[in-house]
């Protein structure tokens, strides 16, 4: 808790106070840092950009992973286990490895510096993760549930949407949460693949820090706001996460 408290503490101080005095709480309490962030478009657009590609990525990852996880769980096909493992190995390489190919690829097809570019790049490690999580949840649902639905007369798409997805909401919730978090904290790819239009907040923070000297108060305020979405999402999925741990897939 201490670093978070210190961050909050700093965000309500002026940069001068941070550098020159040591105090456990702000002496000259100020909202100036926050006001600056919410009024200066280079700042708040950073949040907007980050949220845009993170949400886009979460939706893309989970929609792509759902059918894949269903297939891995329900059907046997040649090499399914190898493919499943291979998916996970994508998580094992550091994202930096992929920065150059992505940069080159997106530059050549004019996707550079767009939200979708970052969202797609993050799919690289988020889809395998989502497949892995969802597969566990889907395998916990007996196959007989699917069959009962067919016997009751449901067609596959109708069953999938009306019965199956509500049954595994916990898994979908967790998959969304992890996709959101990993995409939100990933900096290297996001920074490499953007310049102005889709610049993420984390990049904004580093750049501002280097050009305008030490604007520590402003940075602290931005940092505090960056924690918020994660905390917000965690609050909603906290019950599901326990379930995920029980299944051994989180």
């Amino acid at each position, binding site marked *: 808790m201490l670093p978070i408290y210190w961050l909050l503490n700093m965000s309500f101080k002026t940069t001068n106070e941070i550098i020159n005095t040591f105090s456990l709480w702000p002496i000259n309490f100020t909202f100036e840092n926050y006001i600056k962030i919410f009024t200066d478009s280079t700042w708040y657009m950073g949040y907007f950009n980050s949220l845009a590609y993170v949400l886009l990525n979460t939706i893309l990852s989970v929609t792509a992973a759902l059918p894949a996880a269903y297939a891995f769980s329900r059907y046997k096909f040649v090499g399914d286990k190898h493919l499943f493992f291979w998916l996970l190995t994508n998580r094992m390489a550091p994202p930096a490895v992929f920065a150059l190919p992505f940069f080159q690829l997106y530059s050549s097809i004019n996707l550079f510096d767009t939200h979708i570019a970052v969202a797609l790049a993050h799919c690289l490690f988020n889809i395998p993760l989502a497949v892995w999580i969802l597969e566990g949840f889907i395998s916990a649902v*007996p196959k*007989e*549930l699917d069959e*009962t639905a*067919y016997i*009751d*007369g*449901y067609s596959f798409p109708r069953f999938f949407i009306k019965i199956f997805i*509500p049954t595994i*909401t916990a898994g979908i919730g967790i998959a969304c949460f992890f996709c959101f978090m990993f995409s939100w904290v990933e900096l290297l790819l996001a920074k490499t693949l953007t310049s102005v239009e889709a610049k993420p907040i984390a990049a904004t923070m580093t750049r501002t820090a280097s050009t305008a000297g030490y604007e520590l108060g402003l940075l602290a305020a931005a940092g505090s706001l960056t924690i918020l979405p994660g905390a917000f999402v965690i609050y909603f999925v906290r019950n599901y996460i326990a379930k995920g741990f029980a299944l051994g897939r989180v």
Partner: protein
Amino acid sequence: MSLNLTNISKKNLFETHIYSSNLILEKNSINVLLGPTLSGKTTLMRLIAGLDEPSTGKIYFNEKDITKDKVQKRNVAMVYQQFINYPSLTVYENIASPLRVLKHEPDFIHQKVIEVASLLKLNNFLEKRPHQLSGGQQQRTALARALIKNADLILLDEPLANLDFKLREELREELPKIFTKRDCIVIYATTDPMDALLIGGNTIVINEGKIVQYGKTIDVYKNPSDLISAKVFNDPPLNVFESRIKNGIVNINNIEFHLSKSVSKNLSGNYKVCIRPHHLKNKKEEIDDVEIEGKVRICEINGSETLIHFDYNKLNYTSLINGIFNYSIQDTVKFYFKPSNCLIFNSNNKITV
């Protein structure tokens, strides 16, 4: 209305699950599919339901070939051994779901749900979710869903196996009543011979992927067509002995007795003689009862019955006696059986008596 399976078989690369079988089931019948675990009961039901496609053969319903029809097109209902309900829906919506798919009027659906729910005593739980119910109530919900849509075929795959003793007895009594009023073919798979006897109707005996015998339950029980059928239909297991019969005199293990008069006196040769455990009693009832002086090996009292395993002359016998008898191990006890209760099979396993 009739269901006709012709030369149905199911195999995969490595093993055969169902050997080529024929079966004709008539309308308004309750058919008990009786067989030990892994005998192919579930496989056969999946073929009938249309969840799997048979490797060979055809399935006709009302003379119409439905072999290639998908599950959704066949008007079937199925209840599994595990309690399968839609966890995200309330009990009410669970029961209503087959009718919702068929796009019936909401008023009609409501009326039907209430009707079926009261039949299965679920009225007080309609707004709950399946996981808030007890096992018995969950299975009732699954049964209600199977009943609501007037299916032509209702498949019950060991529906009571996962229930506790009390609930099983209770539901087992209710089930036949529920199904007799319906215009449909019911197939009820079970491993328990008691289920078959209590439910009545017809019995299909299946063992190792082969349909062994089919007929009225009581006939199948009384006159098993061969040893396998007799074994499947007995729990605790049948006492089977190799024996020599000479001019109607049976010799098992140095116990000699005459067969009942109805049997030809000329019967001679090697046979298998079987005695059902509950026909081995510890009281002499008639003069011609045969006596065995056994040494008790194990004596189990389960409720109002006593199951006794005893030895006589190196052979093991099993006896099930009504009432409680507390024998100690190594006690010498006299057991009796009536020759007329013996089942006799020849070497081809076909019944001779």
